[in-house]
């Protein structure tokens, strides 16, 4: 479904992503883990089409994505952002936020689709005409997921979708994402610095360090400690220490 090959991204003279390659099968879920500044979010933004300056190959469903994406591309691939407080327009109602993609693509049944999108992410219909600042963090992130799903995409790119939320809300959102993937046969690429989140949602993951993907392994290998690269082991040890303070 997704193929990324020798992806390179530079900001000015500084190369941030240096030849990253990975594949994700249809209905699969791939996690990218790494420290801040390792280039993991940059990879995701380039895949989504937000960064129009990269080299290498990004292909969805066997079709190479051009640097500048055509509007139809965004019906196939959507993205959910990290911070639900910054990813919703502060002066627009939820209704307006959800309807924008439908209006751009001139899709029929706007009314019905918005209602459906809200119930898909388990939000009450009463939030429809409220403003983002009237909602809680978890509700906002649900709105952001609904906005991505309203395009009926096949691929969902998730940029730390839970890191700005409370721990209890994190679990709700992760379960919602897991359910949606199963119900709609979505393909996920999830970026996070939290190994537990990645391992919960992704059977396969890649570890990034300084713009390179230093290791790809399965979540089972990670749990069992069968890591090959020193950085992966370090991340794993750190994660375990944080979970269970001795």
């Amino acid at each position: 479904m997704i193929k990324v090959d020798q992806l390179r991204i530079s900001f000015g003279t500084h190369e941030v992503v240096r030849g990253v390659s990975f594949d994700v099968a249809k209905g699969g879920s791939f996690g990218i883990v790494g420290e801040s500044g390792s280039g993991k979010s940059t990879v995701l933004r380039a895949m989504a089409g937000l960064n129009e300056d990269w080299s290498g190959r990004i292909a969805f469903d066997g079709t190479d994505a051009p640097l500048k994406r055509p509007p139809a591309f965004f019906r196939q691939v959507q993205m959910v952002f990290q911070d639900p407080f910054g990813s919703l327009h502060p002066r627009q109602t939820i209704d307006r936020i959800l309807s924008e993609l439908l209006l751009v693509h001139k899709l029929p049944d706007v009314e019905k689709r918005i209602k459906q999108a809200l119930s898909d992410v388990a939000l009450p219909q009463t939030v429809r005409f409220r403003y983002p600042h009237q909602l809680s963090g978890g509700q906002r992130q649900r709105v952001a997921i609904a906005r991505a799903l309203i395009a009926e995409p096949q691929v969902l790119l998730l940029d730390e979708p839970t890191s700005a939320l409370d721990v209890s809300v994190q679990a709700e959102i992760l379960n919602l994402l897991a359910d949606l993937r199963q119900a709609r046969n979505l393909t996920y690429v999830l970026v996070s610095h939290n190994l537990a989140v990645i391992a919960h949602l992704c059977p396969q993951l890649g570890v990034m360090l300084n713009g390179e993907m230093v290791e790809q392994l399965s979540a089972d290998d990670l749990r069992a400690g069968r890591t090959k690269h020193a950085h992966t082991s370090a991340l794993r040890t750190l994660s375990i220490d944080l979970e269970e303070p001795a």
Partner: protein
Amino acid sequence: MIQTSFRNWALDETPASRSQANWGRRYRIWLSLKSNPLAMIGLGIILLFALLSLLAPLIAPYDPSLQNLGNRLARPSAVHWFGTDELGRDILSRILFGGRVTLGMVVSVVAVVAPIGLAVGCVAGYMGGVVDSVLMRITDVFLAFPRLILALAFVAALKPGVESAILAIALTAWPPYARLARAETMTIRNTDYVAAYRLTGASRWRIMLRHIAPLCVPSLIVRTTLDMSSIIITAASLGFLGMGAQAPSPEWGAMIATAKRFIFEQWWVATIPGMAIFMVSLAFNFLGDGLRDVLDPKQN
């Protein structure tokens, strides 16, 4: 009755329609503006002047250009509340009719300037690169001239009159608005919600028009209101210098200009229009300060 039901409807925490949500937001802005006494005084004065100017033909006691040379430079009295000028014309009537000219000029200037500034600023800020450089250097050129001097040059090049004065002030007043809109746009363009709208496949123009420009409007409204007084003063100054409204037309600045010869002997001839300019400018400043508190996008 209607008031309370509107209040409950607008302040409903779970609006049921688009219009209810919009009215709710507007009503909340109005409520917080209403709690600011200075802003309400300003708004009251502005509305009063606007109303008086609009109703001038009905309420003015005399024809503003009716001359009575036998009764020139009369002191304020029961017959002529604000006295008469050097041609025996009633000053109160001239102030009322003059409000139409002066306030009309200000409104026309703002109606031209704010959209131009917003458009230039948004395009420059969002497009960036060469477009930004070109638009901003043009803005810099206009900013480099003193406002009144440039306006004077424009009027002199066209022909003295109200229309040229409006055009001249508009041409000199837009650059600060463009700067402001550009600065706002630059802070907005890299946010996640704009990125999310880019992911709908919308064109850059659609994003600018529907999602970025509306966020620049509040700070432009505040800036416009605070700028009103300086526009009034520029309009009056042009009138004073003989480049704005022409002789029989009762423009406030022109009225002061003709009164300057006897400003010490017959003080009211120059003072009354001066007071009118002062009151309206002050009112706009009060309102602008209040609006800034209410509309500031950084709050709430």
